[in-house]
Structures are given as C-alpha cells and as structure tokens.
C-alpha cells in the first residue's frame, strides 16, 4: 500500500512548485497553521486539506486507487496483467492492457496507468522506438506533474504511477545505451523514495527493482565494481524482505560484472572464476525454483556461452 504522510507531502509539493507558505495558505488558513501541518504538529481537517491540495493542483481525496473502475473485473485483469509482465510474457500482457483500456474509468490516475503501461509494452514489442516511448511516457507523466524536466526527483514526492513511469523512462535510456541519463534519473528517484514521505513494504519492492536497473546500467557502462556493490546491497534487501522480485536478474548482473572484471585480469579481485560460476548457477537455480521458465532458459544459455558447459547442479 502506498501510505503517505500528508504534512510531508504538502510541504514537498509546495517546495516543488516554488510557493512560499504565505502564498499557499492565503485565504485558506494562517501561515502558522500551515507550518504546523507541515511539521506534523497538527493534522489538517478534511476541508482545509482539500483546499490546500486543490491549490497545489493535486488529488484532493485522502485515498484513491492507482486504477479504479466501476467493474470488479478490472481488479482481476490488473492482477493477470502484472503476472504476465512478471513472467516476461509481453504478448499476453498486451492483450490484457487493450482490454483494460476499454474498461477503466477516465480518472487521471487510471488513464495514466493504462497509457504508461501501453507505451512501455509497445517499446518491448518493438512497435515504437525507445525515443518515441520516452516522448509518450513524458506526456503521460505531465498528467500529474507539471514540467517534469524541471523537477528535482531527489525531493519530489512521487506517487506509485509516477514512480513506475520514471522507471520505464530509465529503461528507454537503457535501450539506447544512454547509461548516464538512465543512472542519473534512477539515482534521484531512489534518493527520493528513501527520503521518507512514504512507508511500508511496497516501497521495498520498488527500491529493489530500481537498484536492479541501476546495477545493470552501471555494469553496462563499465563500472563493474559499482554494479557488484549495488547488486549485493539489493540482494541483502531481498533476503531481509523475503522478496523474490528480480532476484535471478540481480544475480545475473552480478555474475556478468564479475566475469568482465575477471577477463580484465585485475589483480586485486577478492573472487575467482569459481565464485563467478557459482553466482550464475545460483541465478539459474533460483529462476527455476521460482518458476520463471522464460528466464531459466535465458540463464541456461548464458551459462553455456560463458563457461562452455551445461549448467550442472549437484
């Protein structure tokens, strides 16, 4: 669940829009009261809260769905869609998102969700170029964030939809080998979600997913040490949260970076080819144990390519 602290959100939105406390509170409440809200010393009543958020151009409801609709089938479809994405079955995911498009209501959040997912899928299915996908994703982002190019995501309180759009945008950079841009974006987002305006477990999953992408990009860019360190950090978070999201992928990134370093024959490494092999084998075994069939095959081939032998498990 995305749980956000209202006072903290008001403050961050206000700062992002470069408003002073005086400007925001004028005609709604006193500056002192706003200050008390922002510091968490006082909870705004519903009426005032709605007015403040309204002035900030934000959703005025205390709770709203990432996607809502008048049809309970939507819930099932989204679960199914996420499972497909999860298993890397993009064609099936595409069919479902088409169905969703006709079913969801036209609230901003719902539209934003469906449009962002479609753009990301279109890129995966090579229907549009990464550049085109990025353009579409930015447009979708503008539904809730004005001038995203100017925002500092280190500080900006991102909602679940916005977070996933930025994640996909980073992927478009990755697809074009623009590692610098992708890394810069994700580092900021990671800093942002760590800085404490949201709570509970969902955010750990997001954190792990972002760290996986970052490790991957650092590796591709040639900073193998950084890639390994990040992957290790993410893996220990996985262990702590018993989280299987992107687990084999993280291990693969780690094995790949280790492989590159070993090939460079750096003298100071604290691991050997044997360790590297072990990590890739672990990736393979976990992918298989977690039922990620598609990815298991990929890892099997990678192992064969890297080590010239079948992955053998004893």
């Amino acid at each position: 669940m995305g749980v956000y602290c209202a006072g903290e959100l008001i403050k961050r939105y206000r700062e992002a829009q470069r408003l002073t406390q005086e400007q925001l509170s004028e005609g709604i409440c006193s500056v002192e009261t706003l200050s008390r809200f922002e510091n968490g010393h006082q909870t705004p009543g519903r009426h005032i809260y709605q007015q403040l958020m309204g002035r900030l151009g934000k959703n005025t409801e205390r709770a709203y769905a990432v996607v809502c609709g008048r049809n309970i089938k939507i819930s099932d479809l989204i679960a199914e869609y996420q499972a497909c994405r999860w298993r890397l079955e993009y064609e099936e995911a595409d069919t479902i998102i088409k169905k969703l498009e006709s079913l969801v209501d036209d609230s901003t959040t719902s539209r934003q969700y469906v449009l962002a997912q479609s753009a990301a899928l279109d890129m995966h299915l090579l229907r549009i170029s990464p550049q085109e996908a990025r353009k579409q994703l930015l447009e979708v982002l503008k539904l809730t964030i004005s001038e995203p190019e100017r925002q500092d995501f280190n500080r900006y309180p991102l909602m679940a939809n916005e977070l996933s759009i930025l994640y996909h945008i980073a992927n478009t950079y990755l697809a074009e080998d623009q590692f610098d841009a992708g890394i810069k974006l994700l580092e900021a987002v990671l800093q942002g979600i760590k800085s404490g305006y949201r709570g509970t477990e969902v955010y750990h999953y997001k954190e792990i997913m972002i760290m996986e992408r970052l490790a991957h990009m650092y590796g591709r860019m040639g900073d193998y040490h950084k890639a390994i360190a990040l992957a290790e950090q993410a893996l220990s978070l996985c262990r702590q949260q018993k989280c299987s999201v992107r687990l084999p992928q993280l291990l693969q990134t780690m094995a790949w970076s280790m492989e590159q370093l070993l090939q460079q024959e750096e003298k100071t490494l604290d691991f050997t080819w044997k360790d590297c092999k072990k990590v890739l084998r672990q990736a393979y075994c976990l992918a298989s144990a977690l039922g990620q069939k598609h990815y298991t095959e990929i890892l099997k081939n990678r192992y064969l390519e890297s080590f010239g032998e079948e992955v053998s498990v004893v």
Partner: protein
Amino acid sequence: MIERSKLGELIFFCRKIQKVSQYDLCSGLCSVSTLSRMEHGEIDIPILLAQALLQRLGVDIDRFELLLGEQEYKYFAQRQIIEDALHREDILQAEQELVRYQEMMAQEKLHQQYVKFLNAKLLILKLSKLEAQGRNHTKKEQKSLAASAEQLLKEALELTILESPKQKHVLLSKTEIEILMTAVQQYGLEKIVCVEEFVNKYESLELKEKIYPLIKLQKAKRLLDREKSEEALAELREGMAIAEISMSYLYCAELHFLYAKALQMQWQEKPQWKQIQKECIEHCKAAYYLYEFDGDCRKKEVEQWGCTVLGNL
C-alpha cells in the same frame, strides 16, 4: 464542494458488488449504523477500520494510495518499525517498539488486536530460539511461553470475531487471517478450513498470493501426516502456482521440499518410481538453493534427505 469520503463510498461499492450485507461485513468491528453512516460519508472512517473492512471484502489496499495525517501515519510507521525488527529477529528492539506503539495508542479494538498478535509472535520467536538451544532445564519455560502465546492469539481473535458467528461464512481481515494462520502453524488447530473458505470466496482476492501458499502448505502437511499423499500433491501444486506469481519467496522452499517428500511417499513402492525420482530431485534442488540463498540451515536437512533418495537410485 460535496464532502463525501471516498473510502466510505468505496466500501459501499465493493460491498454491493460482492453481495455482502452490512451486518456480515461489520460483525465484530463496528455497529451496522456506524457502517451505514460511514458509507454515506457522514462520518470519517478511522483508517485501520477502513483497512479491515476492505480486506474483509477481498480488497487489500495495496492498490490505493492513502494520504494520512501525522497521527495516523505514525501508527503505520511504528508498525513497520516493529515488523522490521521482527524480521531481523531482534527481539529486544521489537519489544521496545511494541511498548512505544502501545503508549501512543488509544484503547481501540484493532490496535489492541494488533498488540496482542504481535506479542504472541514475539513469544513464538523466543520459543523457537529456546528450542534451537535445546537445553533441558528450559522445558518448563517453553511450556509456559507456548501457553501464553496461545492465550494471546485467542484473545486477539475474540476481539473481532464472535465465538459463534451467526453468518454462514465468516469474513476475515488480513490481521485476522494472520492470527488464524499463526495459530494453525503453532498448534495445529483445524481453523484452516474457515480461512480457506474465505480465500476461495473472492476470486480476485489481493491477499491470495500472500496467504494461499501458506494455507496449501499447512493443509498438505496435515494430509501427509495421514498418508494421503495424492491429495497433498494436488494442494502443493496449487500452492506453488500461486507462489510463482507472488513477490515473495517466503514459502517456496518449504513447498518444494514437501512436494519432493510427497512424491516419494506416493510413488516409492511403484514401478514408475525410477522416473519420478528425477522430478523428486528437481524439487529438492529448488528447495536447497532457496534455503541456501536465504541462509537457512534447513538446507542441510534437504541435502541429507536428497542424498538418501539419490542413494537408492
């Protein structure tokens, strides 16, 4: 501006779709008239109550973004701190944070339920640590810990579930399910059927992927105890299928290992065993590698068991 709480509307909407009566939904949580007023947006719903009501309707609020006031946010943040400490098995910190939670809390049912449940979990964790030490003179202590934990779980449940509910199917919140499942794991109570019935009631239950694997695991254990290996295999297959799409690997290793054991029980005496044996080893490997990643010492147990199966090859 029409002031209507979206949360109340949402509960009303879900309740209608699921065809659940107000009476069944709020049983043990609040009065029908209170629920009615909340659905109409006449009064604000305390956030924890809203959460429990929605969960009883099969909707976890994972999909919702909740903006909370500082006070409400504090509850959530504090719960997270306690649960993180439990995750790390840091008993001391968990205890301290739980005391802090109690101090900031009003004497409200759902808070009390949570506190009792977490206290029970703490006792169970202590118990498992004592068992791991395996010293004899602690036997008495263990017994009393187990008894207190059981009592706490019972009290926690009774806060929101009537002893003899009038409705046919009991609706359950996530905490209620967790309490029941903890009780099942610890004391083998036959409460599992009522949890499974609830989980099956809602096709799209968002909690399903979190709870189903555990239900299936526990059912399979009971079935294996009674040597019903074929039925156990079916339960485990279902459990694994759901675990595969879940975001957590929490019960995966146990499911795989139990599946291997059930396969052996089912096929060992039959001519096909030679072929089945391979599948059996595959599941052993899966369990082994999951435990290895997790740093779980049950890895050794799987290894030993796997060797004995291999030995007969």
